[in-house]
């Protein structure tokens, strides 16, 4: 575990939430937050509270839907699930993300490659 946690880039939280819901099906806010923490192996700095702004944003866009239900240990909670529009958006965002990380990888690799080449 690194000494300093990663700050989330603008917009990445929304993508994480969408991906989590796509992978896990219906989940409540706490579940989503925990899931992201687990997957990131506690590397991201996530105030769990910020997840709700992301959820309301996604819901207003129609990418996720919510309904009140009862959790595993019998607590009333709001459950979120991804919609069809949400899946489309996720696919598009994922593609974009892959391209971006690909480019970033290549750019960051540039210096190392040069250094390894014989003079």
């Amino acid at each position: 575990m690194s000494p300093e946690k990663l700050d989330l880039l603008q917009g990445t939280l929304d993508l994480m939430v969408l991906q989590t819901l796509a992978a896990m099906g219906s989940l409540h806010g706490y579940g989503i937050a925990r899931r992201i923490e687990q997957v990131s192996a506690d590397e991201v700095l996530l105030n769990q509270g910020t997840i709700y702004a992301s959820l309301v944003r996604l819901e207003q866009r129609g990418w996720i839907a919510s309904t009140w239900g009862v959790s595993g240990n019998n607590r009333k909670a709001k459950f979120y699930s991804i919609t069809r529009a949400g899946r489309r958006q996720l696919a598009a965002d994922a593609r974009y993300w892959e391209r971006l990380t690909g480019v970033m990888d290549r750019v960051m690799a540039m210096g190392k490659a040069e250094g390894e080449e014989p003079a």
Partner: protein
Amino acid sequence: MSRLRRMAARVRAFFTKRALDADLEAEIAAHIDMAVDEYVERGMSLAEARRQALLHFGGRDQAKFHHREARGLMNLDILLQDLKYTIRTLRRDPGFTAVAVLILALAIGANIAVFSVVDTLMLRPLPFPAAQQLTWIAPPPSKCGESCATYSTDAYDEFRMYTRSYQDVTGYFAFSGPGNLSLSFGGAPIPATSIDVIANFFNVLGVKPAMGRLFTADDARHGAPPVIVLSDAWWRTQFNADPNIVGKTFDINDQQTTVIGVLPRSFDFGAVFSPGARVDAITPLDLYGPPRDWGNIITMIGRLKPGVTLAQAREDAVQATPHMCWNNKQPGSCGSYKDGVVPTALKDHVSGRLHRALVVLWCAVGMILLIACVNLSNLLLARAAARSKEFAMRGALGAGRARIVRQLLTESLVLSAAGAAVGLVLGGSLVYWLAHQGAVALPLLNSLQIDGSALVWTLLIAVFAAVLFGLVPGLRMAAGNLHETLKDSGPGSGQSRKHERVRSILVISEVALACMLLVGAGLLLRSFMHVLDVDLGFEPARAASMNVDYVPLPSDGNGNSAASRKALLDHRAVYMQQVLDRIRALPGVEAAGITDYLPLGQNRSWGLPFPKGVKPPENLHVQPLVYVVTPGYLRAMGTPLRGRDFSWSDAPDGQQVVIIDRSYARFLAQYAHWPNNDPIGQTIVDGNGPEFHIIGVADNVHEESTDGETGWQIYYASTQQFATGADLVVRTQLPPAALAGSVLSALRAINPKQTAAEFKPIQSLVDHANSPRQFFMLLVASFATLGLLLAALGIYGVISYSVTRQTQEIGIRMALGATASIVEQQVLMGTLRLAVIGVALGAAASLITARLIASLLFDTSPWDPLTYGAISVTLLLVAIFSGYLPARRAARIDPMVALRAN
């Protein structure tokens, strides 16, 4: 798509704030409970689990805030919050609020009213469909009155035939005098005014009747049964808005005339074509009847085909002129309209000459708005000084500078909105009042109203004002150094001093603006005084006129034969002599006479009589204006005369006599070789016409305007020439109103059918001619007064504040021996310093800009030293006066009290 959806969701969220907040609250509670459950399962104590859960969740309020920001309309939330706060603070300080709203209301109200005037007269198209197609067809301005600005019916016909640019051309008879109708219900006839128009007049303008129908070609046929169309106003006042009026017949000018229609309220002939005059009805012009031989009588109005430009229309007119004859029976008169047929935009004809005055008026109210804003800035700065700690505190608690400026701007906007609301009421009342100034000779005034564009303008200036007066104090306050401000407990420290410098600059600019306004108003006022002082060539005071009805005997014929002509003239002379004898016998009457046209009203010309045996120069577009008058008329008008007046014995078949005015005499004398250049006793002749013997020379009379150049005049004897109408002019020793009854009954004694015409003071003709100048002068002067008041208020505010701020300092000085009068003097000197700088700047700016109003001035230099001097002195006096109260207060400061305070 999702963007739109999100916006809708945000708006929805804004209105369901409470439910959503509750929902979120429940969700967060569940979240934390679940987290606690998990930590407990992992073996933590309940207290530790709770701590960890809350720690991981992060700031709850922050989460809620982000949630609201993400879901709703944060800006609107803040706005509502600011509004609530603003209204609370303003309520706490009702004195400040009232003064601020009043200042803004006055300024915004004036701006709304003037905008309505400018919009109606200048910006908006004329109130006709596709008004930009309408053109006014007239010769360039010339020095021979309306006869040179009109066309003969033959010329009209040819023009219509030989031009291709127009959908149609129409016109109206330009020489109908006021009171040319006499409506009889059996009793005494009632006077009214109608205009004869060519039958297609309303079609060309695009006016639709409110009731009934308008004219067809058939109505204008020679010998057609008489018909009339009523104006909306006349229909209401004279006919009690009778809904069944159409089809009824009335005795008008001794003819059974059928009402065929009523005009819509939106069309007022007078408002467009003869401002300040009332036109009650419209009648069709008998184009092919007798008017054919009346010469130039028609003004032409054309409607261009779509897409035709004015330049094309001009060329078209030029190619049509060779075909236009003054009279088709006189081939020599063909082509006489060369260079005399020029289409211009009808709107320019109606209001073009007022543009400069309107722009000046607009600038004047703009300056009022600026002064008001400066004043408000000043008031707000004074408040800011008192509130600086409040804002420093808010800053210390985390409010950003933008947030504070935003709060202050909200306050300004609220003030300005309140000012605009009250201003709308003030402006609306002013507009209502202006719209009912029927006697002011300005076009379209009656259609003034607060309409959509005026409302939009109100909104614009309200926002503009708010930003203008709110920004400076806002920025200053937000820029304040926190520590400084919080420490700044006493007066005399840095921040307050800086405030005061800004306020002094504001006051100086206020004084400068007021100075410019006052100089403008002063120049206009002086011009107006000069116009009132103009020697008009007649004496309007204590003279009044009344229309005399006279119908020639049908048995005398139409005047075409010498015998018929003599009979008509003789009978008329006998009748008029009888009228004048009776009038002169009335107690209080000094003199009486009859003319067919009064000065400053309509006019006409009959050609250019020239000294006998001298050939007149070619292409001279100047002719003397013609007046056919009885003996005694000139004396009744108060026009000085050298030589002899007409006499009743100047018979139709005797020697033909004329009186000319001095300027015409001087002109003729250049060409004739008269002994001593004296025209009296000389003979003039117009072409092959009769010879006229000059018997007298009258003073120049201002015939067309009080402030313009005077044209030439020629007077013919009513015993020898046909007159158009008969205006009785009476000079009295009593106020004219006192004589009205006896004059009318004297006329009735001779002619029982005499119309109950108005006994109109000659002064009213002059007032009517001066009314536009007076109108603008009064408006600008009242705005300048308002500016002066605001400036005085500003000075008072600043000096008063600075005295309060320096209470301690003054106390110390007095304790050290300064006397009350020295303290008072010093405060006054401070005031005077601000005022002097302001006046100097304002005067300098006026010197530069006064040229812009030069064209509105009469006989007054835009750099008139007297005006500048008087205004400077006035402003300085007002400044001293405004500084006097605070100065007195300063002088009365008790050193002991002042030193103990704070």
